[in-house]
């Protein structure tokens, strides 16, 4: 699935919740529970995303030209939020991530159910992921 298709799928899933905030919160927490565990060794101060009120750890790797993120958070809802981004970006090329236009948040009305503070934190996660992509892209250019 490319980035657009995953965004469409997420939008579709959230539309089933019919704007019910409580269900959306539970759904996010469920998604967070399904996120592959991040090894303790990766939950370092260095991997903490700055600008989130909750603690979010994020690290990325480049394998065969594709980016793979792992992430974790100390709060269940934020873990669900970061899992959405991991799902969208994992397996994509650095270029695809850099050029991605994320529209699903507006489409599912995310700010309405997670509030402004968490939305700002969400922006910080996206920025951090794009920085990883930029670093990987640079690395690939140097190596080629």
């Amino acid at each position, binding site marked *: 699935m490319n980035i657009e298709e995953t965004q469409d799928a997420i939008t579709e899933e959230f539309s089933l919740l019919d704007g019910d905030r409580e269900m*959306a919160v539970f759904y996010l927490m469920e998604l967070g529970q399904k996120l592959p565990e991040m090894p303790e060794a990766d939950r370092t101060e260095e991997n903490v995303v700055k600008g989130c*009120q*909750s603690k979010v750890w994020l690290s990325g790797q480049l394998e065969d030209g594709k980016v793979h993120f792992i992430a974790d958070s100390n709060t269940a809802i934020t873990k669900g939020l970061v899992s959405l981004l991991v799902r969208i970006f994992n397996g994509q090329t650095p270029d695809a991530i850099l050029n991605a236009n994320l529209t699903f948040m507006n489409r599912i009305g995310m700010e309405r159910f997670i509030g402004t503070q968490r939305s700002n934190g969400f922006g910080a996660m996206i920025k951090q992921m794009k920085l990883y992509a930029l670093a990987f892209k640079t690395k690939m250019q140097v190596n080629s």
Partner: protein
Amino acid sequence: MTSSPAVTRVLDVEAIRKQFPILHQQVNGRDLVYFDNAATSQKPLVVIDALIDYYKGYNANIHRGIHTLAEKATKAYEETRHTARTFINARSEQEIIFTRGVTESLNLVASSYGRAFLKTNDEIIISGLEHHSNIVPWQIVCEATGAVLRVIPVLENGALDLEAYKKLLSPRTKVVSVNHASNSLGTINPVKEIIALAHAAGAVAVIDGAQTGAHVAIDVQDLDCDFYCLSSHKMYGPTGTGLLYGKRELLEKMPPYQAGGEMIKDVTFAKTTYNDLPYKFEAGTPNIADVVAYKYAMDFILGLGHENIAAHEHALLTYATERVSTLKGVRLIGTAPQKVGVLSFDVKGIHHFDIGQMLDSRGIAVRTGHHCTQPLMECFQVEGTVRASFAVYNTKKEIDQLVEGLERIINFMK
């Protein structure tokens, strides 16, 4: 909470709720449950109407104008001072200074009294229960004067360690500044005793009454405090105003805090003489509208009666404590015998942000986080808590809704 059942009257909470239009709305598809009263309380119609009436009928700058509107506005503004004097039983209206609220009141005392009268190695005693607004102004004064900050430790149940306080007191103690009730835990501090001990050591006593104004009767003469601070917005009044009570003899000898219009008697380029109390401390055009409406908030509280409000909130706190403490993984933080209606807790394995968000999705407003008391949170070794705080318009049914919401998230997370 101090309550004397023999004289209390049962309040008609449904009638009270009708006076708070904001309560009658749906949030996220459910009836709003507002349990964030320690942060700010909602406003009754009398307060909202007073604001509207002021702006519609007699908005004018006070004290200087001779026209009719200015007279009317001045009279209303000063009527609030009159009511405030009664509300806290000050000796005179000159002892009531309007500020933006407790934070500004504390800053005023710390800055004006502190900088004028504190010197190197003098000691300021605060407590481990303090809000940042009763910590940081004193730290700034310490930096400026060389005075030293001492802290009364907190016991495991959230009460202050009075024996430790007695040991901290010495001839070096010049100021003791504590809250009347803790915003994070609800603990009501034995301020009368704390003040008497401070005086015996030769120190002045400052009381932060942010969490007591709407819940506990205040008599500054009986307490014998030197300063007492209140915020209107936590007492059913408008945001952006509050007051500082100070003993006249202390206020007289303190230098002005801010300078500008209103606080002066005569200004020449060579010398300025300051206005009399309380105007010496009210520089510039004050927050007239909110001060005017503040009177109606105090009258609202006085009309219900502090002892009746306290009895109702005590019943809510007792019920909430019983129900919430039986939930799986809940640890109550702050179980002092004397408390205002504040229930702080954490749930094992569930972050307070998640609980707050989850409750919000069910229309329940609670506070989560460190409540501007980071040192206190550190003392209980938590990053933050969930805090439900009650006001006179809250009901047991709303507590049932809170418990239901908590049960749902606890069951989901296990």
